[in-house]
């Protein structure tokens, strides 16, 4: 009886403790960012439209991927109304800080790098003006035209020093795996501005990007989702084998939304192969998993449910979750992970790492303003 009461009290306390959510999609409507574009692009859009690739697959939820109850009362697109986001997400889930990850990634699949650069700048300025300026809990992600690493670095240097910009973000769909030396000017700028580089699943197989699997294009959306770890795995291996973390030892990379637990056997495999083939890539000086643990973080949603708690604990340990995993909800997307329900019960210390400290350390976010525990 006594034990049950303690348990319940612990649960209440936990719900009162604030969290950091590292993946919140605020809508940056194309029409809203259009005023931020140079005249030439506004004129082109008026004459010929936005010329951006769209998805080839279905999505979940409503309005292409949104929770059916996330449309604000004013009828605007889910994630576009700050007041409603406060009511539906930030307040009830006691979010101390949230990292905005936007919506308009499609420019990153355009063959026109200058146009993509203009769109990214417009998205970033819109986010600063309409979101970061109005809600101190929210932090921003720098969109970059990853087709052109020099233009990307320029944008990181232009806006990355904004005090509320906390990371650089790209979609997982790419022309080359992200560790490739082609991209290194981006990481030079990230390190200089002290911003993590986040790879968010999206745009695999779209526009100029490579097909969404090594076996070619898949047919259906659930199949597309199932194959996302394949693309993310290629990026992770690329960072390690191209020696990026030797060249940029302080660079942090975040793997977002491709899942978490597939990483465990993937790291084991890389470590085993490194033992055998070390001398082919001698610039990889440490076990691949060591680079992962020191330089890579992974956000939680959509967390793969395990058949039982024993497997859950083992996999959490295998990916060193107390240092590497950061909670995120993916609000307002249809596969939202509830801060209260997505994870099974975690030991207190681990909960604190996953729901606050890992993100606070990565993004340089302060401790909680008020300690709301009893």
């Amino acid at each position, binding site marked *: 009886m006594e034990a049950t009461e303690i348990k319940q009290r612990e649960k209440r306390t936990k719900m009162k403790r604030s969290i950091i959510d590292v993946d919140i999609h605020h809508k940056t409507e194309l029409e809203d960012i259009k005023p931020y574009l140079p005249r030439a692009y506004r004129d082109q859009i008026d004459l010929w439209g936005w010329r951006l690739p769209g998805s080839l697959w279905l999505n979940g939820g409503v309005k292409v991927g949104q929770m059916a109850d996330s449309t604000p009362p004013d009828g605007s697109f889910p994630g576009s109304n700050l007041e409603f986001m406060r009511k539906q997400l930030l307040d009830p889930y006691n979010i101390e800080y949230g990292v905005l990850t936007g919506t308009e990634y499609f420019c990153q699949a355009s063959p026109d790098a200058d146009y993509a650069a203009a769109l990214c700048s417009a998205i970033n300025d819109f986010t600063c003006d309409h979101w970061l300026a109005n809600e101190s809990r929210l932090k921003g992600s720098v969109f970059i035209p990853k087709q052109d690493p020099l233009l990307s670095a320029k944008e990181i240097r232009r806006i990355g020093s904004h005090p509320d910009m906390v990371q650089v973000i790209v979609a997982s769909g790419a022309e080359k795996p992200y560790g490739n030396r082609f991209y290194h000017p981006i990481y030079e700028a990230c390190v200089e501005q002290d911003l993590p580089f986040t790879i968010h699943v999206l745009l695999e197989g779209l526009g100029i990007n490579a097909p969404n699997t090594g076996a070619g294009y898949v047919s259906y959306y659930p199949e597309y989702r199932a194959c996302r770890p394949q693309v993310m795995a290629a990026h992770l291996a690329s960072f390690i084998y*191209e*020696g990026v973390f*030797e060249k940029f030892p302080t660079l942090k990379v975040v793997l977002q939304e491709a899942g978490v637990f597939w990483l465990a056997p993937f790291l084991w495999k890389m470590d085993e192969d*490194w*033992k055998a083939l*070390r001398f082919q890539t001698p*610039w990889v000086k440490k076990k691949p998993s060591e680079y992962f643990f020191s330089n890579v973080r992974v956000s939680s949603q959509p967390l793969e449910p395990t058949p039982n708690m024993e497997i859950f604990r083992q996999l959490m340990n295998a990916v060193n979750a107390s240092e590497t995993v950061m909670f995120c909800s993916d609000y307002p997307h249809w596969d939202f992970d509830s801060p209260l329900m997505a994870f099974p019960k975690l030991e207190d210390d681990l909960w604190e790492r996953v729901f606050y400290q890992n993100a606070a350390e990565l993004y340089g976010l302060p401790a909680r303003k008020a300690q709301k525990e009893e």
Partner: protein
Amino acid sequence: MTRFFVGKASEIPEGEKKIIEANGRSIGVYHVGDQFYAIRNTCPHQGAELCRGITTALITSTRPGVFEYEHEGEIVRCPWHQWEFDVKTGCMIVDPKMRTKSYEVTVERYNVSIEDNHLYVHL
């Protein structure tokens, strides 16, 4: 400790090796520089005959595309999974705890002619 006759030093030219039997154990004797080293001919990983693998150098690097060779002749790569071992110590390069046994080798001079020096491993 018992000593086992390997052969004449001149039978193992510098940079080469000889696999011998000593007290029922297969042992690889390596001639590196002016020294001889002996390690057990069994890989601690999956039991391959380690000393039948390539004898080579340690390859290091300062950046992608750069390969630097050092410790020439001191590395044996297991024939099966190419794990690298230091013939001087029997230790795996990337994980020294993973090791095969190493043995002391002595050269005993019975004649003034260096070709006639006898090699012994000590088990």
